[in-house]
């Protein structure tokens, strides 16, 4: 389990990194936390000829607020996001989702950007960004552009990043008062890949009416997906348990679950139902507790 030979660069600025990407394009891979890339290289499932280690680009490591949004640098460690008082206060669902990633030593190294560009559909970050409608800011030779989840995540392990582009920042809206939220997942062991992960948001109005609901599912399709029909079912309603049951059933309908060793397609689909229901109940409890 030794990687094949590669060239190794350590740029100190985004411009240098983009320059290297422009030069080597598909031959190059960016090394951030290395929690997915290094095992892939050790198994020789991936054999990049060039590694661009961006750990020296210190100004990609930050958590800031701008208006109603949180701005998180791509190189920010997952553990820093999880423990950030600002994130815990302004966008607790993000801190909660991140706490499900691997174990502490993995989160100490793994970065926000690394997980998003890896684009594993069962990953907690892709699912929660999809739910929050976060935006990915990428920089390439012609300049920068901003992509929403649907534009960014194309399919399994694939994003719309061009070979010479690098993800630099994620913009995440903070949650208004009176928002119910939850992140729940099913995995074989603590830290394993999610069989299904569900992020939910309930934006409530005075009088206990749900103004808008968001439900994102991970692990049941080639990208994280939003359960739009289930969301519509809840929007403008006073949420009852009967409605939650129905929303779960509706959400499971859109799961295009693939079978693997740990979960059959039927099981995964049914777990989408169960965890959407559990997630919505938890979100509702939170917002009721907060009233």
């Amino acid at each position, binding site marked *: *389990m030794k990687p094949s*030979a590669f060239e190794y660069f350590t740029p100190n600025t985004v411009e240098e990194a983009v320059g290297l990407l422009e030069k080597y394009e598909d031959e190059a891979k960016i090394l951030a936390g290395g929690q997915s890339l290094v095992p892939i290289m050790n198994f020789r499932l991936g054999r990049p000829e060039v590694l661009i280690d961006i750990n020296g680009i210190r100004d990609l490591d930050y958590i800031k607020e701008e208006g109603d949004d949180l701005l998180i640098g791509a190189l920010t460690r997952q553990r820093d996001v999880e423990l950030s008082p600002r994130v815990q206060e302004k966008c607790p669902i993000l801190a909660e989702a991140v706490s499900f990633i691997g174990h502490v030593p993995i989160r100490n190294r793994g970065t926000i950007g690394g997980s998003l560009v890896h684009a594993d559909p069962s990953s907690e970050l892709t699912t929660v960004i999809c739910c929050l409608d976060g935006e990915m800011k990428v920089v390439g030779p012609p300049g920068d552009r901003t992509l929403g989840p649907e534009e960014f995540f194309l399919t399994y392990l694939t994003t719309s990043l061009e070979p010479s582009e690098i993800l630099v920042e994620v913009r995440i809206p903070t949650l208004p008062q009176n928002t119910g939220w939850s992140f729940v997942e099913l995995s074989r*062991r*603590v830290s394993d890949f999610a069989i299904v992960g569900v992020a939910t948001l309930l934006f409530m109005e005075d009088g206990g009416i749900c103004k808008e609901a968001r439900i994102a599912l991970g692990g049941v399709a080639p990208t994280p997906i939003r359960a739009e029909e289930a969301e519509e079912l809840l929007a403008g309603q006073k949420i009852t348990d009967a409605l939650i049951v129905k929303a779960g059933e509706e959400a499971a309908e859109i799961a295009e679950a693939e079978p693997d060793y740990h979960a*059959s397609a*039927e099981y995964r689909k*049914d*777990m989408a139902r169960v965890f959407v229901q559990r997630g919505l109940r938890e979100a509702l409890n939170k917002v009721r507790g907060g009233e």
Partner: protein
Amino acid sequence: MSNEDKGKWVGKGMKRKEDLRLLIGRGNFMDDIRLPNMKHAAILRSPYPHAWIRGMDVSEAEKLPGVRGILTGEDVEKMSKPFSVGVPVPPKYYACAVDKVRFVGEPVAVVVADDRYIAEDALDLIKVDYEPLPVVMDIEEATQPDSPILHDNIGSNIYSHRLFKYGNPEKAYEEADLVVKGKFLFPKYGSTPIETYAVIASYNPYNEEFVIYNNYQGPFVTHFLVALALGIPENKMRWIVPTDIGGGFGTKTGMYPYIALIALAAKKTGMTVKWLEDRREHLLASSTGTDRVTYMEAAVKKDGTILALKDKAIDNTGGYIRPPEPGCAYRSTGNHTGAYQIKDLDREVLVVGTNKCLTAPNRGYTCQELYFSVERLVDMAATELGLDPAEIRFKNFIQPGQFPYTTATGGLYDAGNYPKAFQMALDIIDYKKMREEQQKARKESKYIGIGFATVVDPSVTNIAYVTLALTPEQRAKERPKSGSGESVIVKMDPLGKVHVIASTNPQGQGHETVISQIVADELGIHPDDVTVSDVVDTHDRVYSITTGSYSSRFASVGTNAVVYATRKVKERMTKIAAHLLEANPNDLELKKGKFYVKGSPDRSISIRHVAGTAHWNQAALPEGMDAGLYASSFLSMPTSKPVDDLDRVDSSNTYGFVAEAIVLEVDIETGEVKFLKWASVHDSGTVLNPMLLEGQVMGSCIHALGGTLYEEFAYDENGQCLTASFQDYLVPTAMEVPKIDIGHVETASPLTALGSKGAGESSSMSVPVAIGNAIADALSPLGVTIDELPLSPNKIWHLIQEARAKKD
């Protein structure tokens, strides 16, 4: 002669002497060994489960700078012989595939290079021409005449087949009121020690001698078998094992083919060659426990008395069979009837091959397979008879007054009090109250289950059992086999400190600590005054076919050797002291480091003075006494006898007991299991060190928890392993470990000097079926039956859906 210090250390939770060096990174494992001019090997492995090798081209790989040589199957065939194995027609199992591959991951060539990176690069440049063949993955399909045949020289996939009858099962069936039947599937799981296999080999052509560093769990039978395969006398192959082995659990007691393979690579290239198995190699191709299909039935009276057992068990040793297999099928013979008084048995045993990874003992060595069937059947009988599963166990237990108890199959259970231990487990979980809670929970649609397993825990293998693979007639033509000995040398230096030389080759069990405790008690000294070297060096140590740490041997036969050798030293010290004091040895007593003449407190001599005399003033020793101060012990257990003409054998020597009582809740929406209470009560005889014992019990519980809920070497129908990395082969971590309440009942073994029995495997035998029984109990209102493992949430969910579909 009295010794007032007796019992000062043994039985106490003394901290491990090994820990400091391990915690600060000063252990000495295989990867710590760096020899001059050492080169590195990587192994090319088959991507096919079953294929002819039609050709191999290594020319491109040889040209890669840094490559020092390549060993192929052709070389291995020329330079060695297939490994021997105790079955009528052995397959041709070489250290590397010669003309055909029979499982994914089977070695086909070895590259030796300046570093492991280059060696792995070179693997990519070797071209192998495979001709794929149909595969056989299913155990029962493998027994069919029309299944793909792995070994043409055998002509079928059946490596071993025997029929046994004990007592009079026909009569028992006539007397029975009910016959309970089941078919049980036990999965293939393993041990995953932190330190994988590793070998460093060199060959000196001038004295024609191999020196091979490895982390095998003993010489056991493997040193002898590797020498045979290499075609050399045993004394021309020196094995050295470093101070520390990072876990074994049985994985490192099977035929370790890489010792021969790397030795051949060293001989061919003329280099000192190091090979470390990586995790993928370990999961794909090292060694696992056997998977087993069992058909078992019990003939039972209305009152719950179990009269007879009838079973057909089929084990699967994969693409080949290698020692100590077919032990998988025969090792538990003496304890086949577990903790119960069952006199009549009818058995059929098959060991077959499929295109899966090979097997070796895996903590519990097939007792978990055996008890999964027996203890499920006991619960099923209770259900059919309307009896409580605890009650039926009490009804059938061997009673405390019956020891030593001879089982129908020849096992000689040395000591035990099964009802007392089981009652303790029931009390810990508050059984009666739990049943009430279960009823209450069911009304709220919550599914709580209570599961038991009460099993006999055999330790110290008697090597005789392997000859059960032969019929009595075949056996009569061979010389008998028997034994279980372990060797220890105790020596005292001129300043009166003790060094113990053992070769139990521990893999983390804490033998250094326990040996120090025992010697300290025997001689009235401090454990810090005892040092221990407990490794194997076949040129320096006294060893035999039975030597090593496997089969939970140390606590019984290992401690016997320590005690007896120390007592011999003490006897000699006493004689020297008596001689110097001009007293009768019988009048001496040892107190606080001095020999006193009883009744004359002013007449004494220190241990140090006695030891000094033995070394510095040899003329002062009693006439005829050896100079220096040391003694050895190397005793086999008196109960280790050959198999008799009726196929009865005392397959182990000391027999402990485990009572598991588990309360859990099944989430029927997701199939997840949550443990509510877990009592694990053990009788491992006299407890030597409660802290070490707790570690063993927890380890065996969690190892078995893995095999029950998480771990499996799963294959698809094309023969590819689906779980060849830790991403999919799920070993429980600290996060998955529930609270376990451990209890002990100590019935001293009359066979051991200190009354202790083995404990290292214990719950690995009882936990799988205890959890299985608890899940079956939880889901009984839904009509779910449990007859296979592992019970993943996905699996439990499907069982629930199937049961619901049946009901509708």
